[in-house]
């Protein structure tokens, strides 16, 4: 079973092909260039390099967000259209979870971060749990100050991942001191092969693919919708701050 995985949710564009749990090929770039122009030619080239055709693919995998709204939509639209055209299943995974996979063996908490501007971040708190990363604190868009305060309460080492972490580095150290650990360059970019592997695990666990009405998970309403709701006096909280906590151990063992 071959999986074509793609991610365009941030500046990093990634395309990978997996044969079940074996990575056949992977392309990642980290450029301020247009995903709309480059995604399909990159898929085309990788398949050609691997002597494969679109008809050889059995599953399409895509990151569902969060990240750049436009970037998310390019990936999701391309993926769902290819899956529909080939009549093959479409699976998705959070872009934060994919990035968190780069901290898979870290003995502590793993916190992937994408800048959401205005001192806010898209983030979640993860811990290794079996073959995947379990969300300890649910992914959300949150003020970086508030987020670090919450994370600091957990007295564990914390690995921060993502290129955007750099701009919050000092603030992170202020909150966590020596408990803060930072990813190395290779760990800071999401890997499409990790996406592919996460999807393979979903498949063998019998998870159902996405429906045709599948939509990205932007993690926040549009500004217009948020303003409208507020005007209706209906400013309900859109985000929950606490997620599941299945893996209780604080030392990272599972």
């Amino acid at each position, binding site marked *: 079973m071959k999986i074509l995985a793609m991610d365009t949710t941030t500046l990093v564009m990634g395309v990978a092909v997996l044969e079940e749990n074996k990575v056949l090929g992977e392309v990642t770039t980290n450029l301020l260039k*247009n995903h*709309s*122009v*480059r*995604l*399909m*030619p990159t*898929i*085309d080239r990788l398949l050609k390099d691997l002597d494969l055709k*679109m008809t050889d693919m059995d599953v399409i995998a895509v990151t569902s967000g969060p990240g750049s*709204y*436009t970037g998310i*939509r*390019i990936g*999701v*639209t*391309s*993926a*769902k*259209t*290819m899956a*529909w*055209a*080939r009549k093959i299943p479409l699976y998705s995974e959070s872009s934060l979870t994919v990035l968190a996979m780069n901290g898979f063996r870290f003995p502590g908490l793993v916190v992937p971060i994408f800048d959401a501007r205005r001192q806010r971040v898209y983030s979640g708190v993860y811990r290794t749990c079996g073959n995947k990363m379990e969300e300890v604190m649910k992914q959300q868009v949150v003020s970086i100050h508030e987020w670090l305060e919450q994370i600091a309460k957990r007295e564990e080492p914390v690995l921060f991942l993502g290129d955007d972490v750099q701009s919050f580095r000092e603030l992170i150290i202020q909150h966590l001191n020596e408990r803060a650990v930072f990813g190395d360059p290779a760990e800071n970019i999401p890997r499409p092969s990790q996406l592919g592997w996460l999807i393979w695990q979903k498949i063998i666990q019998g998870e159902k693919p996405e429906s*045709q*009405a*599948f*939509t*990205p998970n*932007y993690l926040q309403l*549009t*500004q*217009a*919708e948020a303003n*409208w709701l507020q005007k209706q006096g209906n400013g309900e909280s859109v985000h929950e701050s606490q997620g599941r906590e299945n893996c209780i151990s604080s030392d990272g063992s599972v």
Partner: protein
Amino acid sequence: MIQKQSLVLGIETSCDETSAAVVADGTRVLSNVISSQMEVHRRFGGVVPEVASRRHVERITLIIEQALQEAQVELGDLDAIAVTQGPGLVGALLIGVAAGKALSFASGIPLVAVHHIAGHIYANHLVKPLEFPLVSLVVSGGHTELIYMEKHNHFERLGQTRDDAAGEAFDKVARLMNLPYPGGPQIDRLAVEGSISYDLPRAWLEPDSLDFSFSGLKSAVMQLMQKAKQRQEEIRPADLAASFQHAVIDVLVEKSIRAVKKTGVKHLLLAGGVSANSALRVQLSKRCEQEQIDLRIPPLELCTDNAAMIAAAGTFLFYEGKFADLTLNADPGLPLTYS
């Protein structure tokens, strides 16, 4: 031109309509599925680009699937996929372009990139084959242009608006008058009950110019309303709607006739969303009858954004082998220059 057998899928997502259609030979509409977001945007008083883009992603493959089902064709039966490349809202256009490219790549069916305005002009081809040379008046919320066509896929702009599009002027004036969104059809409806009793300006610009300008007219309406308020006079909405609409249509009709005379063509085409305006249809028809010009007006369902018109225009790009590759990108300011 030799008419070849062809089956083309059109995809249109330039604004707030997600649409897919199947057209045979560039003339026969086998299906034309339009999922309008008007209800979604009404509460915001206009189209919100981010909201539109989110909706397009959700609907796109469902709409394409429905278009194929209604046309009773399989994906593999298609000869080409035609997608709107621009102009329009960039985020919205990107959905159609991404879907078109992915579909083309996954199926091996060639892709053609269509200009949205070309699509509006080709809506007329779905009624009766275009006869060249011709002039087309394209009027919508985003465009007011006079286009000269010598042959298929060949567009020359004779004039365009220098500020607001005609449809935009309708929407802005409707908002001034507190009419519900979308404003254009509201003004059209209201104007029927009114008389042309307010004196409003018409911008003719330079004597030989085929350009348009509607921002002065909008300002004049605003001033008229303010003055009335200061003098505590009642504005008669129906009369204001009729007077404003007449001022817009006067210029549209006159400049179209001038463009026809200047180029010496026999055929005038009306295209774009504002073609649905009843007074414009009546006045342009009357005038063309007097001047013995063959006027083509698309039926109402083909006036607003739809994918059948994109498929029709795309069919002629397909006939001429003008294909797009996988690097195709959405272009919100795409000029109508391909020939």
